[in-house]
């Protein structure tokens, strides 16, 4: 079986006698076109992002007053766990997966993705799982839920979600490994495709670990003696500790890997330069992923208070701390070094263009760098940041960096999705607004974390954390600022969705290669035909289109 003999349905018309609406819905539901599957993943996760950003804004405003909550304490606890689970499994992973599924086969010069029906199965399984999770929360389920059957429903829904994501990731990874155009060796794949490969492998390797815990939890919670909830198991009175690994750093960093791939992709295009030290980009992503992947082997890699540890323990603490917390920064530095050099060469030759995708990418990488750098303090026990809002700030920085990168992906590749140009100035304003919202939403958490404000994504019940804590700064102001930041992020996403829908409906038709791109997706029409390419392109360098264009100043 090859991808080439797999028919796609993009050109299929509606059968005679069927209403256009039914035919359109049926064609989307049964599609095996990777571009449609990816767009569905990304669009649905974008909508969920909108809802969740609104939710965290409400929750942010709720804790402005530390003596009283306007939400019921149990509802508050549930909503916070929904936010954390939702951001990972309904937003971050599927959004990056969706863009990768849409774009990567085009970048590779493939006529389709490998196992498109498997990816479609992953999409619908994921969506079903998400629906079940939302229903379970509505019925007081979730990790700390009060209704037993709804908690079972939550476990089943999360299991389905994970299964769907792993299936789609397996198709994506296989595509990168097997469906590259002739001449495109693995070291010549575009940075975004490389990051998508590493990201997909990370999903394949890490998520089944959580699935194993979910299978046991379901059996134990629904039919068994609920040993998993007893003290002496993994502790605590809820399911949260069991899924904590997947929701914590450094594992969340690898779900954000495509952010770096996207930035490394757009900077050379808008600097009109080939990537300087390209190997640094590939190695940097690999190094960052290594630390994240091994993060599933242990949750706690803290530095204990030095007064309570002997020399051997201190050495062990420092080694594990450095591996899990400093290695990702080394990877980021290597990658950003290469990207910055490319940017500087563009600035030096004055060939750089400031366009919305570049702005979104810069915003995303600022937030991700911010998260990586601030995270290094969390495991130091003496600082007492574990369980504080500081941790929450790191998590939200990662989430918002993925969201900004997702918006950047749409602004960069929208031509390949719909063949229409998006308006430049409004998008640039949204990019700046998104970065500002992300900073405003997270920076107050870092200040409040140092002032002992407990986090709400923690293991314990919310009531022990929300009220009655001591704060040395101005908590009301900081919490209000953070709530405003979340609200602005929700507005940014909403504005972006409205803008793109309007442009997709009535925007100007775009040229096939308006950005002067370097990779193969710009060699085909906008939008691409059913099988992506008329002829399979030939590749002899990492920038095959640049090779073909007339030599510019010094490209």
């Amino acid at each position, binding site marked *: 079986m090859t991808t080439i003999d797999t028919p796609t349905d993009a050109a299929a018309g509606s059968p005679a006698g069927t209403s256009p609406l039914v035919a359109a819905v049926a064609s989307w539901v049964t599609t095996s076109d990777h571009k449609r599957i990816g767009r569905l993943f990304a669009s649905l996760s974008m909508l969920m992002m909108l809802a969740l950003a609104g939710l965290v804004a409400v929750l942010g405003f709720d804790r402005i007053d530390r003596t009283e909550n306007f939400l019921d304490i149990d509802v508050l606890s549930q909503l916070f766990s929904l936010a954390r689970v939702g951001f990972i499994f309904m937003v971050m992973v599927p959004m990056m997966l969706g863009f990768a599924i849409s774009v990567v086969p085009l970048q590779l010069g493939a006529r389709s993705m*490998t196992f498109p029906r498997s990816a479609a199965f992953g999409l619908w399984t994921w969506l079903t799982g998400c629906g079940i999770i939302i229903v379970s929360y509505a019925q007081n389920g979730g990790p700390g839920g009060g209704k037993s059957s709804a908690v079972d429903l939550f476990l089943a829904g999360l299991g389905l979600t994970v299964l769907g994501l792993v299936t789609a990731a397996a198709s994506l990874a296989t595509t990168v490994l097997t469906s590259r155009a002739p001449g495109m060796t693995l070291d010549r794949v575009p940075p975004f495709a490389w990051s998508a490969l590493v990201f997909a492998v990370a999903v394949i390797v890490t998520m089944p670990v959580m699935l194993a815990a979910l299978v046991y939890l379901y*059996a134990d919670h629904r039919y068994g003696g609920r040993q998993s909830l007893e003290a002496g198991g993994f502790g605590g009175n809820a399911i949260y500790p069991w899924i904590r690994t997947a929701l914590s750093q450094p594992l969340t960093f690898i779900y954000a890997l495509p952010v770096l791939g996207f930035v490394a992709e757009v900077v050379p295009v808008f600097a009109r330069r080939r990537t300087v030290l390209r190997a640094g980009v590939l190695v940097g992503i690999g190094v960052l992923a290594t630390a994240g992947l091994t993060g599933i082997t242990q949750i706690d890699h803290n530095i204990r208070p030095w007064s309570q540890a002997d020399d051997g323990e201190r050495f062990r603490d420092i080694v594990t701390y450095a591996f899990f917390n400093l290695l990702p920064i080394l990877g980021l530095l290597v990658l950003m070094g290469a990207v910055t050099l490319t940017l500087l060469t563009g600035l030096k030759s004055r060939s750089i263009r400031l366009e919305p995708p570049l702005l979104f990418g810069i915003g995303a990488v600022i937030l991700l760098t911010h998260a990586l750098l601030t995270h290094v303090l969390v495991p130091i026990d003496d600082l007492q940041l574990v369980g504080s809002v500081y941790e929450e700030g790191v998590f939200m920085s990662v989430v918002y960096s993925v969201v900004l990168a997702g918006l950047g992906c749409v602004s960069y590749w929208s031509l390949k999705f719909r063949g229409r140009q998006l308006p430049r100035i409004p998008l640039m304003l949204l990019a700046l607004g998104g970065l500002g919202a992300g900073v405003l939403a997270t920076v107050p958490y870092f200040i409040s974390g140092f002032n002992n404000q407990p986090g709400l994504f923690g293991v314990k019940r919310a009531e022990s954390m929300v009220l009655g804590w001591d704060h040395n700064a101005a908590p009301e102001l900081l919490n209000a600022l953070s709530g405003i930041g979340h609200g602005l992020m929700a507005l940014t996403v909403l504005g972006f969705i409205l803008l793109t829908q309007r442009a997709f409906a009535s925007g100007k038709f775009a040229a096939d290669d308006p950005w002067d791109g370097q990779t193969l997706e710009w060699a085909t*029409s906008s939008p691409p035909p059913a099988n992506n390419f008329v002829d399979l392109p030939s590749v002899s360098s990492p920038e095959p289109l640049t090779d073909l264009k007339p030599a510019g100043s010094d490209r």
Partner: protein
Amino acid sequence: MLALPPAPAPAPRRQMLVGTAMFVAAGTMLIGAMTALWFHFRGEAEVWKPEKLVIPEVATNVMWITALFACLIAQWAVYSTTRGDRHHTALALGVVIILGLAHLNSQAYVWRRIELPVKGDTAYNAMFYAITGTMFALVVAGIVYAIVGAFRYIGGRTRDRETITGLALYWYFLAVAHTAVWYSVYVTK
């Protein structure tokens, strides 16, 4: 649109094999995590296995042997298809399916025979069903894979060695995974 020079025909690609390897990686992590959970609980518990529980070891050993044989027979299918021997390939695929069904039958027999309720005083009961149930589901997937491969082969895709090779890889994984489960659940208990 830029006119790129047409490339030569794409080289044969090992999509089924690589795709199967991806799912095998996921399955390895799944079973690995479950085995780790089993040992974690066993190490923590003062009393682990229910006192009156007697596991029919003949059936569990038969399960292990069928898993080992199934991967050997799957390799036989690969060998036969490489030589263009249609009859032996079809026969080998049929035997893989039968061995898989025998494996499931033995597992069902064990479940029925031990009469262990899922609800127990320790985590043993739920963990037992979680790990053996997951292994059961993975074997079902292997049988479905073998049936699809057999239909494709018998249907005329005799040059499609990728599917048969991927199938063999999957059954190798099942043999290793079941060995881990067999050793932890039925041997060291």
